[in-house]
């Protein structure tokens, strides 16, 4: 009899879990839609800034005007210090989302260390921070709360110190690792070399006339534009990561709901079996009791 009660309690608890996972899935779906909208709006800025950067890169190539010197574009063969910025979620329950990023970061660390570079980690998102703290990796900086609500100002502040350190020569390369949104059901790992900027990556654009710069010191214009470009890349990565997080959670919760449903079905069957069994035993007891009375 105790068995019956136990099964019934189990069914109840699984059903409750199912309710939670279903609600979480719905919430993620709604949030994903909102983040997608945000990403879509940012994309027009991305296009514009990429276009501008390509035009500048093309005119630099064509007219060999200055501005190409400076640390922004210098690719060192073997970076002595590499900054790895990685974005994970603040919350779990989203399948392999966080761990994929962590795994990629660990591979990167191993890769760079094998080549003799020193790696500094900069983490955004609680899950990644927790993991690396537990493993005993020193974290150069750790930011919580930015990955769940991307904010341009905070993203800019975060990246500013990194850029400053890069310019002062404290680091030689900045890599950004995050999980990106591909579509509703797939995420892909993205690994962006933020600094130095690879100008060969920009496509060639037809430049018809020499570009004038205002104020005259071209460096200043170029520098602020590059800063903007990096800031925006950072911000966009955060949005992209958030969208990926929601889609990953949506999937994980969908799977959890399905599993819970299956489990309830299984438990119900065993509950019925146990119930039948107990009825049969009772009947046998009654019948054999009657037989004995005869």
């Amino acid at each position, binding site marked *: 009899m105790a068995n019956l009660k136990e099964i019934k309690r189990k069914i109840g608890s699984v059903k409750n879990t199912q309710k939670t996972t279903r609600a979480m899935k719905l919430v993620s779906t709604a949030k994903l839609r909102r983040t997608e909208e*945000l990403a879509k*709006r*940012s994309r*027009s*800025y991305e296009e*514009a*800034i990429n*276009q*501008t950067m390509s*035009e*500048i890169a093309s005119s630099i190539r064509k007219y060999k005007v200055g501005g190409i010197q400076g640390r922004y574009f210098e690719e060192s063969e073997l970076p002595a210090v590499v900054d790895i910025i990685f974005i994970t979620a603040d919350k779990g329950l989203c399948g392999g989302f966080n761990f994929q990023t962590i795994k990629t970061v660990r591979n990167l660390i191993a890769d760079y260390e094998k080549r003799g570079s020193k790696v500094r980690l900069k983490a955004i998102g609680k899950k990644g921070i927790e993991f690396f703290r537990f493993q005993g990796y020193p974290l150069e900086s750790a930011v919580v709360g930015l990955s769940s609500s991307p904010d*341009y100002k905070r993203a800019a502040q975060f990246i500013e110190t990194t850029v400053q350190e890069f310019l002062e020569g404290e680091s030689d390369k900045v890599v950004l690792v995050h999980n990106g949104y591909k579509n509703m059901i797939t995420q892909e790992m993205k690994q962006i070399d933020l600094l130095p900027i690879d100008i060969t990556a920009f496509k060639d654009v037809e*430049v*018809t*006339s*020499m*570009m*004038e*710069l*205002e*104020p005259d010191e071209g460096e*200043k*214009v170029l520098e*602020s*534009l590059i800063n*903007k470009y990096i800031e*925006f890349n950072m*911000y966009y990565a955060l949005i992209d990561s958030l969208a990926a997080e929601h889609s990953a959670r949506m999937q994980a919760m969908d799977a959890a709901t399905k599993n819970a449903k299956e489990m309830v079905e299984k438990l119900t069957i065993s509950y019925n079996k146990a119930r039948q069994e107990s009825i049969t035993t009772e009947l046998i007891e009654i019948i054999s009791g009657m037989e004995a009375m005869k």
Partner: protein
Amino acid sequence: MDSLKLEIVTPQGLIFQGEVKSVTFPGEEGEFGVLPRHASLLALLKPGVIEIEKIDGNKESIVINWGHVKVGEQGATALVDGAIPLEGASESEIAKKIEEAKELIEKASENKAALAAVEARIEKAAKII
């Protein structure tokens, strides 16, 4: 009629896109106007008002805090940090926009004199609407 393509974008989204007759930007070294077929130019912008003259002669003002503009023969693309278009269906809406615009400028600049000048420009622009 000659026209140039103008695009104003912020990280949060597109603010303005379309063919215009002329446009005035608040450049770092002073205000400058852009007409169709302007020479290529990349300029820094400071807090101020972008004034747009549309094809139909109507004017539109957009308050910005900071950014860049890239002018080419085909048109102009402004990449700005924050922008608030001074427009609205009713007077109260416009008044609200003006407040927002002032706040945006105040955050972007510490120079009181420049601030006052920009605020005056905002008021003036608002009157035209």
